[in-house]
């Protein structure tokens, strides 16, 4: 039986069903949460949320953990990173990945030289005491960008490390 809460409202029905909405929301579960927590957030029944969450566990998108007799769901970060590495290998030439990696590293080197710091944390710390608002904003922007590049570099490097092997694995049989 379908409860009223599970029915799509008119506007969203055209673009996204409740199930699709739960699936999109599930990708944001960085902290382990129960099915009923996600059900409240997405305005569906706990049963519906659990159905989609369990499917995503089967598909290795989410993983579960038990806590206080409850099942909690969160994104399987290891599998998400492997998928990310595979899509970089499949969608980009080795040269593109190499150029991008070099360019990310060069930007970080430039920031280190320009501000005489070694980490984005040190750059953020250097903001204290600055009065020029434009410079404060600039350093904050760079620190945010730097932190992101620090995260991306290992992913791109992992894609390059096994690029040839992945290309062979990805070839379609003749």
């Amino acid at each position, binding site marked *: 039986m379908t409860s009223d809460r599970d029915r799509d409202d008119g506007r969203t029905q055209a673009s996204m069903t409740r199930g699709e909405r739960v699936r999109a929301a599930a990708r*944001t579960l960085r902290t382990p949460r129960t099915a009923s927590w996600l059900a409240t957030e997405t305005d569906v029944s706990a049963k519906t949320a659990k159905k989609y969450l369990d499917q995503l566990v089967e598909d290795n998108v989410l993983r579960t953990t038990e806590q206080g007799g409850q099942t909690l769901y969160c*994104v399987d970060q290891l599998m998400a990173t492997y998928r990310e590495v595979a899509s970089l290998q499949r969608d980009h030439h080795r040269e593109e990945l190499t150029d991008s990696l070099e360019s990310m590293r060069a930007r970080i080197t430039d920031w280190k030289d320009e501000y005489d710091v070694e980490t984005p944390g040190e750059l953020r710390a250097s903001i204290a005491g600055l009065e020029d608002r434009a410079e404060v904003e600039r350093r904050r922007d760079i*620190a945010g960008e730097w932190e992101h590049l620090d995260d991306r570099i290992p992913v791109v490097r992992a894609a390059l490390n096994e690029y040839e092997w992945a290309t062979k694995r990805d070839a379609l049989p003749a």
Partner: protein
Amino acid sequence: MGLPGTIDSSVYEGLKDVLQRYPVITAVAYEPDRIVKQFLRARVDPSRLVPPSGPEPPTLDIEWRFLENESYYRIHYADSNAGFNCGWHRDDDHPELGPVHFQFDHPVTGEREPVHFEQCVPTEILWTVLDRLFEERIPSLTSTV
């Protein structure tokens, strides 16, 4: 932008899914590219806005970051035809307005106001913002500029 915290590509995939299904949005891409993936940029069909705009497609930029369990984000719309931009930001720029604020920037008029969302899930916040932007804010802001 300068939001604190780190980006999670998996979360961006969920947000991209929401954007791609929203009727007035015609294209969604990673910026500066799919390798670096710093933020998402959606292009809006100017002829499907109420009221219609044009000729340039307005853009909607979404950057989402996480510092421990806290979300920081900017969902920012810019229409060069109408000469304004506005957005929902959760950052440290306006502590007097609380964690989240709406801001409307225009050479003559402009405003900042506090905002509260019932939901915590990024995709649900984005749905709420898209509804408010296209159904309420754009029609009323366009009539004031």
